[in-house]
């Protein structure tokens, strides 16, 4: 029998029992739609995490001054004063390092006219904004020359703009902290909350030297941000950095590090892995419903084979070979699962679009999930259709003909 004739036969048989066919396919429809919607939620979460990580700089390492031990008293991270600007300069020479941004931190009460706002004033170099991938909304950055001169200028975040200036244009105005007056030369774009929940926009950046000399009166720095060429380099340069700084700080082998290295790439990797696990988890829960849909197909096909035993007997008497009967029933199962798959894909995309519109979920329907879901639906059709079809094709003609 030709493939086309077999297909027509299968479609006609299903058409005779439209309602039953629809209900049988419904299991697959729901299964496929669930897989696509769930994976879309997972992929959406993954995307959201990835974009948050990007805003932190995923190939970055942070070096902070460490703890010290004096006579059994061990102080916390950031309490030693051994990290110097020269250390940062030395790191530039390491292979795999793209940019280095030394910084100092301080907390101050910033004042503008009658208003004041407690925030942090960090001393950085222009490179810092490149490392953080943080553009300006207006104005301009302070220059390397202004850093060298310890110029009284600053760049401010959006939260500071809101709290200190309100509706007044901030550019060109002067902010006072302690005895220092800094002119606002630039306003950064909003960056939002960090992955840890702190407000990244609640900050004032001034030249490193300005904060060191004019605000804090120190010579050391608090930390260095290092941008690596890529994710792999971020991991591989950690021991190099350690070695270099230990050397520069003249630490003996039996002494602990007086600095700490935080690898953001590590964090990024963890976050991405967990997002992926989340995605897989959602997908596999949804797959269970697809499996149940497949069992529904098998159930109905078995009923159908029993009901049509006499038809099978007649067909066999008239010359149908085993494979003709096998394909007739297998094609019915495949059409059910295939059509269920297509409708399920549309329903899943609709469901994902509805979720995106009416809920907080970020969703992303991927081509990959559509192909996977449709492929699984067909596989389910073959897997669960094969048993009833084989059962039909192995009936003995005389018994099938006699069946009432």
């Amino acid at each position, binding site marked *: 029998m030709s493939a086309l004739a077999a297909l027509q036969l299968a479609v006609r048989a299903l058409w005779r029992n439209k309602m039953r066919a629809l209900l049988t396919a419904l299991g697959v429809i729901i299964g496929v739609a669930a897989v696509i919607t769930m994976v879309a939620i997972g992929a959406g979460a993954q995307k959201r995490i990835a974009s948050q990580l990007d805003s932190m700089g995923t190939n970055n390492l942070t070096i902070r001054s460490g703890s010290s031990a004096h006579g059994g008293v061990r102080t916390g991270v950031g309490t030693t004063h051994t990290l110097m600007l020269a250390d940062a300069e030395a790191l530039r020479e390491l292979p795999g390092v793209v940019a280095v941004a030394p910084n100092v931190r301080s907390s101050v009460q910033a004042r503008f006219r009658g208003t004041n706002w407690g925030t942090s004033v960090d001393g950085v170099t222009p490179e810092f904004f490149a490392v953080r991938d943080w553009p300006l909304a207006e104005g301009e950055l302070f220059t390397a020359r202004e850093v060298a001169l310890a110029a009284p200028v600053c760049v401010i975040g959006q939260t500071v703009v809101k709290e200190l200036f309100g509706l007044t244009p901030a550019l060109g105005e002067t902010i006072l902290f302690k005895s220092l007056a800094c002119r606002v030369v630039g306003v950064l774009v909003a960056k939002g909350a960090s992955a840890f929940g702190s407000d990244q926009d609640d900050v004032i950046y001034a030249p490193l030297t300005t904060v060191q000399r004019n605000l804090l009166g120190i010579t050391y720095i608090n930390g260095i941000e290092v941008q690596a060429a890529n994710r792999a380099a971020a991991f591989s340069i950690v021991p190099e950095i350690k070695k270099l700084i230990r050397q520069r700080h003249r630490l003996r082998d039996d002494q602990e590090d007086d600095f700490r290295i935080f690898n953001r790439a590590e964090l990024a990797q963890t976050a991405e892995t967990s997002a992926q696990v989340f995605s897989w988890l959602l997908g596999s829960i949804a797959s269970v419903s697809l499996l149940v849909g497949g069992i529904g197909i098998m159930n109905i096909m078995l009923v159908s084979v029993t009901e049509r035993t006499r038809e099978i007997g*007649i067909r066999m008497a008239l010359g149908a070979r085993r494979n003709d009967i096998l394909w007739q029933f297998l094609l019915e199962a495949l059409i059910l699962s295939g059509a269920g798959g297509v409708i399920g894909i549309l329903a899943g995309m609709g469901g994902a679009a509805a979720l995106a519109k009416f809920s907080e979920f970020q969703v992303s329907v991927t081509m990959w999930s559509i192909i996977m879901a449709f492929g699984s639906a067909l596989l389910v059709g073959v897997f669960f259709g094969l048993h009833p079809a084989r059962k039909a094709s192995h009936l003995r003609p005389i018994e099938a003909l006699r069946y009432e």
Partner: protein
Amino acid sequence: MAEPIIRMESVHKYYALDGVRVHALRGIDLNVMPGEFVAIMGPSGSGKSTLMNIIGCLDVPDSGGYWLSGADVTRMNVDELAGLRNRALGFVFQGFNLLARTSAVENVEVPLLYAGVGRVQRRTRARELLQRVGLGERLNHTPNQLSGGQQQRVALARALVNRPALLLADEPTGNLDSATSVEILDLLTELNQKDGVTVLMITHEPDIATRAQRKLVLRDGTLES
């Protein structure tokens, strides 16, 4: 001398009925020549249906030989038997055995479907046969829209559609009233005499068997002429 269409030599068949082994056919020898019209009679339980199933290649003998147009049926596998039923045999059953909810013309097309005949040819040939049995006006009627006699005509058209060498009729008039029975028997006789179709008919009614050229009686699994 021409080769017989059916040649059977000491065919035996057993089957189990509720765990009891029944010796249904006890050494059947049978020769049917092309163009013959043979009736096999016998009381119920005599093994008529078992014999018919074996002749119709729906079942195989447990021992003995059976050649259909010279081909050794006992050596064939299930798919070869299916091919043989499709090409060499036409069936007419007591209960018509038409596909329900399927039009007359589509019913007649079924054997052609499994013979791999194309769509257009199938339709033409099926129409031709339905016209031949006098149902040219009812091509698209489904079995439940047809009378018993009409249904048996559709079955007859279906049996003939692949131009089989042998037509097997198992109590073809068993479900019909006497007037309709005569019509069907007339049709069978006509097919045998005009078209030279070999007919083997099973019946338990002696007056129906008189239509045949040769009458055989099956009793307790053996043939008497």
